[in-house]
């Protein structure tokens, strides 16, 4: 069978919807269109039933009580609500927050805003393997710490932070723990109780659900977490997030979670095998290629590889049939190297020539084989063209050269 190009290898950015999710959602656009807050007629009840089922489905995937799920528009909103909501609600208790420098922008920016407002933020720095450890968190906690926000798995590297252990530290010290689990939910086992998590963000479009639907888990017992809402209005979602519910999106998110729960073991086994094949295929043929982040502590379907002596943009151009993310955060005209890769201590030029491959539910072995082949051919061609590689082969230390300014 001929491969359909381009190949999608960017499932950490977003995922296609699973047709089964779409099927579950469809009736809620038309015949079951009611407002789930309409208490006095059939239309409302029907919609409410759909939302209720979704709460169970989401709760079931992360070990939470259905009542602890607050619907949002996605993880950006969930992170904002968790971080700003806790900061405001507990401000009389303390004003110290702990996070890490290689979190998603949806965590960094709320923390920066709080810092501007007078909160004290500790920015943990990972070791070269990208992992945030429980020890780091324990050492950073103070008397006035009100919140630790550390992501479960990193979106660029796929690295998994020391999660149950960080939760344990926070419980012992009586500090609330929020985790941005956008990349972890549905891919690896996530259990809010086993991990000692008080607030957890998740998003539907990363797990074969629709865009614009997400949730925030907010613990109700031991301790009962309270939040100052960001959006005020009709008092939906226990007052924490007002606004008529996005019933179709929520139904889709619920179905997506259910499918992940039922199929995770099988999917993980299949995808980790393919991911390992991709790693092996590339690393065995390109001696300078390196995996970024702790290789044996990653999501099963993500890998991030650097290709030294090859420039990033030309690399992307050479593999344009494969949709991937590069280590450049392309902000309009200027190419900024990824701050996540820089956090690992990578130089700008290596960060630029790093690629994240994100496999997914519909990735086939043929696609992986094609990707290995394309990447290896492209890198070999570009190495052939690279004056830096030539110097390295001649035994010249390119870091010792005084390069002209340009």
């Amino acid at each position: 069978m001929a491969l359909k190009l381009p190949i999608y290898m960017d499932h950490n950015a977003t995922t296609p919807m699973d047709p089964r999710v779409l099927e579950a959602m469809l009736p809620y656009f038309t015949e079951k269109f009611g407002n789930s807050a309409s208490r006095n007629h059939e239309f409302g009840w029907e919609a409410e039933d759909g939302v209720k089922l979704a709460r169970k489905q989401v709760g079931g995937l992360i070990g939470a009580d259905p009542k602890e799920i607050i619907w949002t528009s996605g993880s950006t909103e969930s992170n904002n609500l968790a971080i700003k909501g806790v900061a405001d609600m507990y401000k009389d208790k303390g004003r110290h927050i702990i996070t890490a420098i290689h979190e998603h922008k949806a965590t960094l920016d709320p923390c920066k805003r709080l810092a501007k407002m007078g909160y004290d933020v500790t920015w943990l720095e990972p070791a070269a393997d990208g992992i945030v450890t429980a020890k780091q968190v324990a050492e950073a906690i103070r008397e006035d710490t009100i919140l630790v926000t550390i992501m479960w798995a990193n979106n660029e590297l796929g690295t998994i932070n020391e999660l149950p252990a960080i939760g344990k530290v926070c419980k012992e010290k009586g500090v609330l723990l929020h985790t941005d689990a956008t990349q972890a939910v549905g891919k690896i086992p996530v259990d809010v109780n086993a991990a000692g998590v008080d607030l957890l963000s998740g998003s539907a479009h990363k797990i074969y659900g629709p865009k614009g639907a997400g949730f925030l888990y907010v613990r109700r017992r031991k301790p009962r977490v309270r939040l100052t809402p960001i959006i005020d209005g009709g008092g939906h979602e226990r007052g924490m997030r007002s606004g008529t519910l996005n019933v179709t999106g929520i139904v889709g998110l619920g179905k997506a979670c259910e499918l992940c729960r039922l199929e995770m073991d099988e999917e993980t086994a299949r995808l980790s095998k393919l991911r390992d094949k991709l790693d092996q295929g590339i690393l065995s043929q390109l001696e300078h290629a390196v995996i970024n982040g702790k290789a044996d502590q990653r999501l099963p379907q993500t890998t991030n590889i650097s290709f030294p002596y090859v420039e990033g943009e030309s690399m992307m151009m050479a593999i344009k049939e494969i949709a991937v993310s590069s280590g450049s955060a392309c902000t309009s005209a200027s190419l900024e190297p990824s701050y996540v890769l820089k956090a690992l201590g990578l130089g700008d030029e290596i960060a630029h020539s790093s690629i994240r491959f994100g496999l997914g539910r519909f990735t086939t072995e043929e696609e992986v084989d094609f990707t290995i082949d394309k990447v290896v051919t492209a890198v070999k061609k570009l190495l052939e063209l690279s004056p830096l590689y030539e110097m390295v082969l001649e035994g010249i230390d390119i870091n010792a050269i005084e390069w002209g300014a340009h």
Partner: protein
Amino acid sequence: MAYSEKVLSHYETPRNVGSLDKNAKNVGTGIVGAPECGDVMKLQIQVDDSGKIVDAKFKTFGCGSAIASSSLATEWIKGRTLDEAMAIKNTEIVQELSLPPVKIHCSVLAEDAIKSAIHDYQEKNGLDHDHADASEHTKA
């Protein structure tokens, strides 16, 4: 980013990739740029007794436009005298490859690489420097 057809052509099949013996007396080598900035070009010329460039080779670490600019530069300087090669302006490269404003630095670097290779050749052979300097680029 959309590349022009000419950039793509040079990128897909770069002309004159390779290296000449940098220790040979009739070879001039220019290396310009820096890895942190995302571009390094090495351009080499081989010059005959009459002062004509008979061969040129390059290797470039850089984006598609940088590769195309240096590939085009080697094409253009082959068969020219040193003076003629010295007179090549980055704006001509910009025009030929239809480079967008954000890629003009690639053409500047290619012009620098030509000049730097010529200087190296002249220095090796005790010839006078032509005073064309890298600082007088016309920014398109």
